[in-house]
């Protein structure tokens, strides 16, 4: 007697026919719709995910650092503590001078916001902040890091979250100055936390020169780490790294400076 097999009996649940890729695509489209139509809810869901990611990154960094030379680390720590103490004193003195000169009130210092996602997980050079329109953040406000370093401009806002497009994002153009002579330059975002600018060869800009951006006064935005020159060109390209480590930024200050994104 001929036996019949029902090969497609459970075709929908069969592990050979089930497409994980198609399932993943449906799952992602759902999140895309959620981000488009309910961005605040979307970021509320993903904030714990990013926080877990940060905690994991910090723990792995601590683990790998423990393999370093202890004596060297102790010396380095002592040196850094001394430097930190000196800088804190200097900062205090400068702050007092600034307050006495401009009469800035506490409200002018802006809104302090925690960073939810930062460049290692944000390939487009953006920061996601845990403060939104409910905290008074609006599109076009400028974000500053520790020490008043300009980082970027608020490009989108939801009720509890906002997104900062960093000055290092590709396509972002900022005006500024470079070097001891305060030479005006156009700073262009190069992606991955880096920036670049083109200046005349005769300007004599060297590695280590500080790059400034406009704000309340001249604010250090980064430093020249490499000067690329082509013998056939009258100009040189400056490779600029931010003054603040974007990969470890945990909080920023947001305030209105009248700056806009191009």
């Amino acid at each position, binding site marked *: 007697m001929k036996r019949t097999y029902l090969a497609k009996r459970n075709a929908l649940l069969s592990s050979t026919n089930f497409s994980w*890729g198609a399932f*993943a*695509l449906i799952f992602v489209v759902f999140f895309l719709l959620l981000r488009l139509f309910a961005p605040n809810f979307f970021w509320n869901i993903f904030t714990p*995910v990013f926080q877990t990611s940060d905690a994991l990154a910090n723990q792995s960094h601590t683990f790998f650092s423990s393999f370093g030379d202890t004596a060297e680390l102790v010396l380095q720590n002592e040196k850094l503590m001394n430097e930190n103490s000196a800088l804190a004193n200097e900062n205090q003195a400068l702050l007092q001078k600034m307050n006495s000169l401009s009469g800035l009130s506490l409200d002018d210092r802006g809104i302090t916001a925690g960073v939810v996602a930062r460049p290692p997980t*944000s*390939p487009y050079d953006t920061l996601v902040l845990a403060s939104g329109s409910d905290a008074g953040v609006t599109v076009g406000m400028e974000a500053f890091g520790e020490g008043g370093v300009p980082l970027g401009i608020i490009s989108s806002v939801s009720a509890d979250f906002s997104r900062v497009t960093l000055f290092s994002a590709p396509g*972002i153009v900022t005006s500024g100055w470079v070097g001891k002579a305060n030479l005006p330059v156009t700073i262009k975002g190069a992606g991955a936390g880096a920036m670049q600018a083109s200046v005349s060869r005769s300007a004599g800009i060297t590695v280590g020169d500080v790059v400034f951006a406009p704000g309340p006064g001249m604010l250090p935005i980064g430093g020249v780490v490499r000067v690329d020159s082509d013998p056939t060109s009258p100009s040189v390209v400056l490779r600029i790294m931010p003054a603040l480590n974007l990969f470890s930024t945990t909080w920023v200050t947001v305030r209105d400076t009248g700056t806009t994104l191009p």
Partner: protein
Amino acid sequence: MIRGTLTILTFISTVLFPWPFTAVLALIASISEPLTPLAVGLFADVLYYAPQAVALPLFTFYGALATAIAFFVRSWLKASIIGE
């Protein structure tokens, strides 16, 4: 089971690890699941894309490209003597 694990791992990597690592995982996953690079690319753009920074959602674009290549390679292998 391995296909599912690899797809889920690629998604987790999008949030936890730098993007080059995720890209490598997505390419490996595309051997068995051609739609995974597109799904992961779209997921990365859902999380991080900022139209003010880049005009084109790059990760979706590269994901779609990898998916198209993966489908092409699979159809070519099936049509060739190796697929028989």
